[in-house]
């Protein structure tokens, strides 16, 4: 990304939140939503723009589970490992996705098609185990269904 683009993108988000330091989490959420992850240059720009030390921005960016400092795949898979999903066998679903894609949780596929993450409950417990891909909820998942579901995402 070019310097100019980084500056513009960050400035837009900071403007939206009126350069309010206390909204750092929201600011990082928006940047991540737009770019898929938090690029280093953008964190530096946030630090300058808000006049908050980079160390603070970094500590917030690494504290919260929702943020990633590395690029992510086109489709984010979130396997719910909340308790309701756990007692219905979410671990086995996660294991099958890991085998199918040849990656572990927290990793990207080499072609950047998928990123695999886990989440601790999305509150759709009636349908557990739940797998969320992008914005789609796939309920009542089983290891057998994994392959067919993944085929829908390119």
């Amino acid at each position, binding site marked *: 990304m070019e310097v100019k683009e980084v500056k513009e993108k960050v400035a837009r988000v900071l403007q939206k939140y009126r350069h309010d330091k206390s909204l750092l989490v*929201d600011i990082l*959420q928006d940047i991540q939503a737009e770019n898929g992850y938090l690029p280093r240059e953008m964190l530096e720009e946030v630090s300058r723009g808000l006049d908050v030390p980079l160390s603070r921005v970094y500590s917030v960016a690494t504290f919260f589970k929702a943020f990633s400092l590395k690029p992510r795949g086109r489709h984010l898979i979130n396997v719910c490992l909340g308790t*309701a999903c756990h007692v219905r066998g979410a671990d086995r679903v996660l294991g099958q996705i890991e085998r199918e894609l040849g990656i572990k949780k927290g990793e990207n596929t080499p072609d950047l098609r998928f990123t695999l993450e886990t*989440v601790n*409950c999305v*509150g*759709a417990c*009636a349908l557990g185990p739940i797998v969320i891909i992008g914005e789609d*909820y796939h309920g009542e998942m089983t290891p057998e269904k994994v392959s067919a579901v993944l085929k829908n995402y390119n």
Partner: protein
Amino acid sequence: MTRLKSLGELEALRKSIIKGRDPNKTCITVCNGTGCHAQGCKNVTAAFQEEVKRQNLAGKVDIRISGCHGFCERGPLVVIKPADIFYQRVRVKDIPEILAETIGKGNIVSRLLYTNPKTGEKIVHENEVPFYQRQKRIIFGNNGLIDPTSIDDYFAVGGYAALRKALQMTPEQIIEEIKKSGLRGRGGAGFPTGNKWESTRRAKGDAKYIICNSDEGDPGAYMDRSLIEGNPHSVLEGMLIGAFAIGSHQGYIYIRNEYPLAVKNVRLAIQQMEDIGLLGKDILGSGFDFNIRVNRGGGAFVCGEETALLASLEGKPGEPRAKYIYPSERGLWGQPTNVNNVETWANIPLIISNGADWYSQIGTEGSKGTKIFALVGNITNTGLVEVPMGITLREIVYDIGGGIPKGRRFKAVQTGGPSGGMIPESLLDMPVDFDELTKAGSMMGSGGMIVMDEKTCMVDMARYYTSFLEGESCGKCVPCREGLQRMREILTNITIGKGKKGDIELLEELSATLVDAALCALGGTAPNPVMSTIRHFRDEYEAHIKEKRCPAGVCNIGKARAK
């Protein structure tokens, strides 16, 4: 919309809204909570709208998108008012038939009705479904009646009438009323709400803040989300009343980013309040100023702990601090701050409208009112249930929840989230309230209720929760950071057949250390799953350790031995 300038104008607006509505006009409500979303309610809603247009029924029938009805297991849910016909598992292909038969001819489409699994009988009306019959839905009930994106709908069901009443009371009178109601915080600890308000009001500070804690991190609990998503104005009205009583001019809603629909709906509701003059300067001519801001979380369980939440609100990592001084004295930016949970705030308008005497009739001696539980896990009727305090666990699990599916046996119910405890079958007849749950070695928590059948291994569950909490520990204090790691290692060893004599005692010792020495509530309650499983299911631990056998057949002990 013009800003309302007085209490009279508010009442006039409500009257005109109600007058403009025909209570006898047919209204098809489609549940659009997250649970139903996951089951495809969006397409169902769109199909209804299209089909109504196509069949030219717009004059005859309204389509209303409603909040969560609670019976998530059977979604997408459709309720046709005013006859109250209850259809479940509705798919797009069913819609022309519903419109032609039920709306057109007044016939019931019997295949979409709920069947009582015990009697095989088809049930037509929502309130006759056993899942709803034993509930007392004073807080959650309006969810199904209103479109969460419409402030008019909220006015029509009596919304902001409590605010009108409160603005004619003194702050002290309001606090007295809340104290008298016996309301205790619904976030988990059960601190008396009125007392908390009073100490924040009395504390000295340049500014005072109130916060709605919507960082509902307990896996398996989603009642707060469904409230704020399905009836955001009820929470906001509670906050307005609280702010007036406490003397605060700035409120915050700290909400999980994992709940996108709730974030959207509450932001819209705040916008509507600002437009109409229910937020901002000189609200309804009372001279009282108040604003609310929404902050999203970043997926950290510990941020539900109030001091961690405050740190996060200040733009810092969400690490808790020791509570020698409570937030009601020094909270956000060092100022007196009152933090209440979503469900607590939603209770406020009810108490003010109906009075403390009415409210305190519901519930038990020490726990008043109702509580919403998320009934999930190995249970037939998954969903959100609102019950009076004091109901027994057996009634919740069997009468409302419909028991355990697949003909299996009940083993335990976990309440209070990851740092709650397991309750065995022998305690099922215990009344559910703050004090009884604590006595049983668990806690109320935010209201997750995870039912486990005989195929669930208690040692594995203890390992699961400990590993969850280890991951969510912020790492600031040693007992929690190191203790949970050690406990998880021991538990993992037990589940793979490497358990040793003395492991149980060591787990008990580590647990006691965490209870005594951890900095915040996360660490202090983290050993609950381990302690309660040892207390009630010690035989399972011993089977793993001595006999190298998992009675539930979950743990891969055999494999470990073969290696």
